[in-house]
């Protein structure tokens, strides 16, 4: 039971990361901040689980990482969406929309 919830969360986090990166390259901390900001603090990214997710997405080839200089001239690791990642994002977004629409319908009518 717990495992299913975790899967859902994991999948959601992946989707959020991909979506965040679709706007441009960001480093890890900025990703967590952006998600929090945009969701108006509704979603709070568990910062600990952000990095394993980033590494997983990198392994899957959906994002790429590269060391570079930040605005404050710090050496940080930037993440960028790959083409495969962009496709994946489209797919996931569509799945998510379908899922949430379906859930919403059920909640409204049932």
């Amino acid at each position, binding site marked *: 039971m717990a495992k299913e919830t975790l899967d859902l969360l994991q999948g959601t986090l992946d989707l959020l990361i991909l979506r965040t990166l679709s706007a441009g390259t960001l480093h890890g901390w900025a990703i967590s901040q952006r998600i929090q900001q945009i969701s108006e603090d509704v979603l709070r990214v568990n910062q600990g689980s952000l990095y394993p997710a980033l590494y997983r997405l990198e392994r899957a080839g959906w994002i790429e990482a590269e060391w570079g200089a930040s605005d404050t001239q710090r050496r940080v*690791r930037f993440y960028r969406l790959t083409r495969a990642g962009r496709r994946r994002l489209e797919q996931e977004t569509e799945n998510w929309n379908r899922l949430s629409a379906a859930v919403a319908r059920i909640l409204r009518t049932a």
Partner: protein
Amino acid sequence: MRLRQRLRSLAFPLRALLGRDRLERDMDEELRLHLEMQAEHDRGRGLQAADARRAARVRFGSVEAVKEECRQSVGVHFFDTLAQDVRFGLRSLWRTRGFTSAVVLTLGLGIGANTAVFSVVRGTLLRPLPYAHGERMVVVRQGDPAAGVSNLGVSMAEVGDLGARARSFDGVAEYHSMNFILLGGDEPRQVRTGVVSAGFFDRLGVAPQLGRTFRAEDDAHGADAVLVLTHEFWSRAFGRDPGVVGRMFQMNDKPHQVVGVLPPLPQYPDQNDVFMPAAACPFRARAVAAGNRRARMVQAFGRLRPGVAAGEARVELDHVLANFKREHPDSYPAAAQPTGTVEPLADVMVQPARPTLIVLFATVGLVLLIACANVANLTLARLSDRGQEMAVRAALGAGRRRLFRQLMTESLLLGLAGGAVGLAFAAAAQGALTTFAARFTARAAEVQLDGTVLLFALGVSLLTGILFGTLPGLPSSDALARTGGSAARTAGARGGQRTRTALVVSQLALSFTLLIGAALMLRSFAKLQAVHPGFQAENVLSLGLHLNWSTQSPTQFLSVERQAAFHDQLNERIRALPEVSAAGTAWTFPLNTSFRNDGSILIEGQDPAGTLPVAQGMGASEDYFAALGVPLRQGRFFSVADRGDASDAAIVNDRFVERYLPGGEPLGRRISFNRGQTWRTIVGVVGSVRQAELEREPGPAYYVPFRQFPSFSSTLFVRTQTDPLRLADRIQAITGELSTDTAVGPIRTLEQIRGDALAPPRLTTTLLGAFAALALIIAVTGLAGVLAYAVSQRTREIGVRVALGAAPANILSMVLRQGLTSIALGLAIGVAGALGLARLVSRLLFGVAPTDPLCFVGSVLVLGAAGIIACLVPARQAVGIEPMRALRTE
């Protein structure tokens, strides 16, 4: 796309592993930065530096745990676990050294045999021909199947017309091969000479190793004669001296310049020493001058246009040949229906090798399967011995998958070790196998342990590991942990016993199939060995004689009279030797598989418009028959008087009489082999000699006096009262005295010639026999092992039975029953398998049906006997069990 992703997700952990330090550094740095930025952010909101850092850490959670999760995400663990498994596996295999070495040796034999045979299959059957256009080269033949002639040959004029008319080819080259004498070296050297159209090598796509190959102008009438050396001859005769290019040699009365050296190449159909352009061949020049379309003395090689299939070319060829007959009716017998065949050169070159290699490959495959089954059984037994170890590991939390993975790692390690040993075996067997393959195909020289073969060995090793690693199966780790290991033992004893028996039965079945194969080959070989070739092989020396094509040489062999005189003198001198009882000459030696001289003949009084009889012609001197020991059935042999224009004598063999003159009186009948222009009278009937393959029934043949039809290349036969090889030097000396430019060779006894003909089937039989024996040994030791294991499992039970009064005979029959059931099952399945396999072997068999009952019964007896002996060992062990001791165990 998916594949790329897959590869990537596999490559990623590998990269991560190799850059392990970098990964750790990156991770440290990235996480540290994250915490720093978070703290900075919080400080911006008014927190103290120390508090901000703490808050950031709290929010982040355990850094180490995150790192660990990251490592898992990247997949580094896969390799950590692998390294662990490998280390553990090696230790565990080392502890059971006996088991390990038995397994590695068994697998080594199996994998080695497969690798070695595969290297031959790859070198000959699978590799593309080492010519640039090899896949488009075809052998073009003209035959008359209606008259029973598969290969008429083609004439030079026909090759030219074919090239001009048949649109399927973008070139047709002519080829024939002759023996000439090369002068200008240390001594006259007989060279096998391939005579080809100038474009021959360009069409093949062969670039010279040194110098050049032929150009169109080399083939022009009156061009300077040039030679191209084969790599093999260049190495043998000139020690690979690059200076040989440009050297002049005397050949056929003309200076010939060496213009190039070929790279090492497989040759077909002859193993030539040198090549010359067609225009330079004196023999051919005479025939061309005669303008005779019926002088079908050459062979044709075609190159298919890109995209044209051999089948399409054949259809067109038939059409073109039909036109040839219409336009030149005098060039074919009236009833002839010339038809063509177009076969890829690559296929033709390996045709004789293919069936043997396929059978051999199947055989070693079965041997490996048997070895796998045996190893699976050993692994199963070892597994139940490791029950406790498994239980401990399961109790400590190792999942079934984890345990299975450990076992699989060990199996793969064993497979790889077996593969390494197998490669060593294969490398050791390489030389012998190449020699073996050379008996069947010129492509044997291409056999090597190259990258593909190594990959094959690796693949087979891994596959073997997986196969015998999966076969035994594994109880669930729950069961293992719960029962404290006895699950493994019980699994080994019950379910395992079934698996074990199934494995042993399949081993027996497979090895029975191999036994049948070996038995069939053995019987076939015995039959072949018993074949009477039509001559008495004992104490006969055969010497190849090759005269120089010269008008200037003192012997001036271009005239028939001079050639005849030379042979007369030679035979006379040899006959004068005290050890010699007969000496005769003929065009070639018997059992010469490359000699084909079938032609249509006319028999006086038979319809010349009907399908003409076909017979093989041979020039033979009067003592040829005595020297070979060919019996006279009727009439007389040739005599000294059969010379010049005085005689029209011909001799036929008894096959000829049976087939074409049944019931009549053959003597005095007249035959013609030039469609009635001249006639020869049959003066004698002799026994039939197998002139070509030993396997082939001799066909109708006629003989003409060698004196009237001498040949520049001939074979001299000397029957002696002592060891014939002892005369070789003396005969060579006599030849040298009579003619300084005549080359002698090869020098062999008729028994050696017969032995050579028997060598390929003998080798095949030996190999198949050895593999069958190996398989049998593995299978019956497997059977003995399984029975012994069953007895050891039932020690208590047997003890109780004995205590309760079971007689030794009862115990014995109990064990034997189990063994015999396995054997019977194995035999039943094996018979079915062998019947299926029979079709595969049938092409190798001579005079034996693939379902030969004798072979089946014999194999059943051999396997049964070996199996029962294998049963007796554990059975005696069972009988020897003392009840008291047995009950005290456990």
